């Protein structure tokens, strides 16, 4: 498995225009992802978003609640209607005391492909090899859903086992 990228594919049973709107409309993107943006997406735009619990899943919304209002910047890269949306961000950059601006970003790409069964969506996030290890550990700890406690247990265990 590559340490630099994550690739996911999902088949969506919806018209491609519907999928494109869910991705390219900043309000729609925000409602499933769990963020609120102050402007529409446009290529090259620096988007200031804040974490807002998702409206799609009550369980996930609960885990996002502690992070509500935390600002999160993404820079839109390319927008090709019903084909591709890409942006750059700092993964897991939710500590308000850290200035992430100077740190490397990862590139998130959504690619759409129409098939007989529906829309095949491929998500690729790449550039993790450039992210400093210390930041990876932090992103890891600051994760939603009580990961801090879980990771503390795991690291404690791994430490004890050595």
């Amino acid at each position, binding site marked *: *498995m590559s*340490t630099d990228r*994550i*690739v*996911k*594919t*999902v*088949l*969506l*049973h*919806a018209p491609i225009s*519907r*999928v494109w709107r*869910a*991705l390219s409309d900043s309000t*729609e993107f925000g*409602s*499933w*992802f*769990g963020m609120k943006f102050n402007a529409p997406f446009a290529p090259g735009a620096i988007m200031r978003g804040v974490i807002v619990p*998702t409206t*799609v*899943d009550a369980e*996930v919304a609960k885990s996002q609640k502690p992070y509500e209002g935390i600002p999160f910047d993404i820079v839109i890269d390319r927008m090709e209607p019903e084909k591709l949306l890409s942006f750059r961000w700092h*993964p*897991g950059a939710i500590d308000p005391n850290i200035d992430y601006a100077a740190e490397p970003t990862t590139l998130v790409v959504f690619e759409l492909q129409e098939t007989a069964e529906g829309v095949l*969506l491929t*998500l690729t*996030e790449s550039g*993790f090899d450039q992210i400093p290890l210390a930041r*990876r*550990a932090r*992103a*890891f700890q600051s*994760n*939603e*859903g*009580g*990961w801090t*406690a*879980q*990771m503390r*247990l*795991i*690291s*404690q*265990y*791994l430490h*004890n*086992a050595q």
Partner: protein
Amino acid sequence: MRSSSPKTAHLFAALGDETRLRLVSRLCGAGPMSIARLTEGTKITRQAIAKHLRVMERSGLVHGRRQGRETLWQLEQRRLEEASHYLDIVSKQWDAALLRLRKFVED
């Protein structure tokens, strides 16, 4: 949905419970233990502990070894190492986000 590591998602589900986290913690700190010892000092019944251990065993997080009349439970270090892998976490977040997207566009 295809995922780069479906087993990891399963593992996270096994960890996503307070009682099970406590069991991980106790097994971390004190090594292999019988259900009787894991139950000591808790308000949880042996049956409940046994049920949690079975969930954790199915995801490969712990395994039981017979010793005489009792079974000693211990953690699987390899599985925990996998869980502590950064990309797995990000990967899991994307799985969850894409499920939300699917729900959003298919509803």
